[in-house]
């Protein structure tokens, strides 16, 4: 679960990290009003999006008066922001963050991140913070210094002062940086954040150390111990999530709509990816990605299949199920039969059942009066699907 900058800043601020004073605005009018009230000599106006690369894409602007803030905020809110990390169509800007602008002496990069290959938590620092850090690190990996964080200690421990020295700081300002790094590690373990990134961590001309931008990613599997964040996630999903995908999720199904015409029903993420790979290799276009989790009941499955049948683009449905120890073929067959009984339209059905209770599932589906093409194996199923697609196109 990725948080917006303003949400991330509020949270890291609670852990003792210095953040600029600022407010969120949803309109140009709001931006002006808030700027007038805060009365800073200069304002940073920042588009709130999840994707990175915002600075280079023009998503961070400055204003020297409330009137100026109004104009800049209006421009940022007017259209989606396209960056190197967003979809090509960009990301909608629902809010801008209006905050105090600073005179910066130096910008540092700092992140505390779960490293999946090493299976540990690491502090990454670089003396060269700012918008193009990624390119510079790609050109020379030594730009980034890494320090493992010991999470068995509370608070978590690492060579925080060594990290401050690694970015070239000494004396009192090094102490300050070490404190920020230690607090970032506390954010990671305290909030179950898999990413705590401050870029830039700015040293101002008057010697303050301030988090000018912050990114925070919270582990959704840990929300049971963070009820406030769970509520925030529910809100974010309601605002931004696809209602069908969210409903499918409640039915123990991972569903993502795609832009093709072949509906796909699969159990297991690996098999689901592999099935879509085979269809696309054969020249087909999946209408969706679907992974039925092991915990889905037949009625959950009926819901998922129903979503696919209701999609007007769906021309044919491929059901590729490998029954396992926890999700058997016959449970899926039952769900499919229910969905078809409810459906307002019929599309050709290609079914490949294998593994646990495959024969029983075929019998059940036939017994329910469902007509379907009974594929021998995955290759056979894909070729049946492709010939149906070809016929429909002719």
């Amino acid at each position, binding site marked *: 679960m990725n948080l917006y900058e303003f949400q991330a800043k509020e949270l890291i601020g609670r852990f003792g990290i210095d953040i600029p004073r600022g407010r969120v605005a949803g309109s140009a009018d709001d931006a002006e009003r808030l700027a007038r009230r805060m009365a800073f000599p200069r304002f940073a106006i920042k588009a709130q999006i999840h994707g990175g690369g915002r600075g280079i894409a023009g998503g961070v602007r400055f204003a020297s008066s409330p009137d100026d803030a109004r104009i800049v905020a209006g421009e940022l809110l007017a259209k989606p922001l396209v960056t190197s990390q967003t979809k090509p169509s960009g990301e909608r800007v629902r809010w801008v963050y209006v905050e105090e602008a600073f005179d910066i002496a130096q910008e540092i990069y700092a992140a505390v991140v779960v490293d999946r290959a090493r299976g540990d938590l690491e502090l990454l620092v670089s003396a060269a913070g700012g918008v193009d850090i990624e390119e510079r690190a790609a050109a020379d990996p030594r730009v980034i210094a890494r320090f493992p964080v010991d999470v068995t200690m509370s608070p978590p421990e690492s060579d925080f002062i060594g990290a401050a020295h690694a970015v070239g700081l000494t004396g009192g300002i090094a102490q300050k940086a070490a404190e920020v790094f230690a607090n970032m590690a506390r954010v990671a373990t305290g909030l179950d954040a898999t*990413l705590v*990134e401050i870029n830039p961590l700015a040293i101002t001309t008057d010697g303050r150390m301030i988090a000018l931008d912050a990114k925070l990613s919270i582990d959704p599997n840990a929300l049971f111990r963070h009820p406030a964040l769970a509520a925030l996630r529910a809100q974010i999903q309601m605002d931004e999530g696809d209602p069908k995908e969210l409903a499918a999720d409640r039915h123990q199904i991972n569903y993502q709509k795609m832009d093709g015409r072949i509906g796909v029903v699969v159990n*297991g993420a*690996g098999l689901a*990816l592999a099935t879509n*790979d085979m269809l696309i290799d054969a020249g087909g276009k999946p209408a969706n990605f679907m992974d039925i989790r092991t915990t889905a009941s037949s009625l959950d499955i009926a819901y998922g299949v129903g979503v696919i049948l209701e999609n007007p683009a769906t021309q044919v449905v491929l059901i590729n199920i490998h*029954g396992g*120890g926890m999700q058997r073929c016959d449970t899926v067959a039952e769900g499919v039969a229910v969905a078809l009984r409810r459906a307002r339209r019929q599309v050709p059905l290609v079914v490949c059942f294998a*593994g646990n209770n495959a024969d029983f599932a075929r019998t059940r589906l036939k017994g329910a009066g469902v007509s379907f093409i009974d594929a021998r194996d995955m290759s056979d199923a894909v070729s049946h699907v492709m010939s149906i697609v070809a016929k429909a196109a002719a």
Partner: protein
Amino acid sequence: MAILVGGDTRLLCQGLTGRAATYHMARMTAYGTRLVAGVTPGKGGRNHLDAPVFNTVREAADATGANASMLFVPPETAAKAMIEAIEAEIPLVVVVTERVPVMDMVRVRQALKGSKTRLVGPNSQGILVPGVCQVGVMTTVNARSGVVGIVSRSATLTSEVMAQTTRAGLGQSATVGVGGDPVHGLSLKDGVELFLEDPQTEAIVVIGEIGGYGEEEVAEFVAAVRPGKPIVAFVAGRHAPLERRMGHAGAFSTEGGGAANPKIAALQAAGVSISPNAALVGQTVALQLHRAKSEPIRSL
């Protein structure tokens, strides 16, 4: 012979008295797995599925000589249960639980360092040695004892490849699920290493998917070791849309994880044979085994 588990496995089950554990453990014992103890805090002293139940792993291990533990513990307490098993020096711990918090797994990984325990999972379907021992929740309908070792990140694809290798007349020495979580115990590379040492295993299948660096690690290992057994890999998700990245850290750490094509390229460059799709893994292994037997690998 097999890897990780076998006829001498004396299994204890943490969370035995729960519903899912009861269902799956009954299937495992019916398959021939020897269940020697259960652990459920507060329920010590009972019997469940003909096995004595203890309050702690240490008590259970001391009383029964258990040498492996399988966890059916909910995500909230799974890490605590894993660490309890590690501290009791259980040599093998297999975890089925899904959705364990990542930070908990980071803590478990720290507990594993220097310990005597090998962890499989979490979010793993477990380990199957066909005809001998099942420590997992997989289906066994298409399992046949044989020569192919399967190590995998995906439970359903394992099951599919099991069926294919059985159909090809090869059978399996063992199947191991490393689990789908970002931070886990046994890696794909560890699985390959174990299968290379196992005399029953004549060929190895590695099933990967997008995300993480497990496949790249296998490629590095294979390139360095130049193993004498054919290795076939399949990586799912070649056409999957890339996940949107956030922040820069993903670019310099391994937080984000990889697309399928670089994984496939790395494996291929290391000499691993790639199955073009999920349906052809069995045939690809059969072909590689045939080639290996008809022209023995020359030492370099």
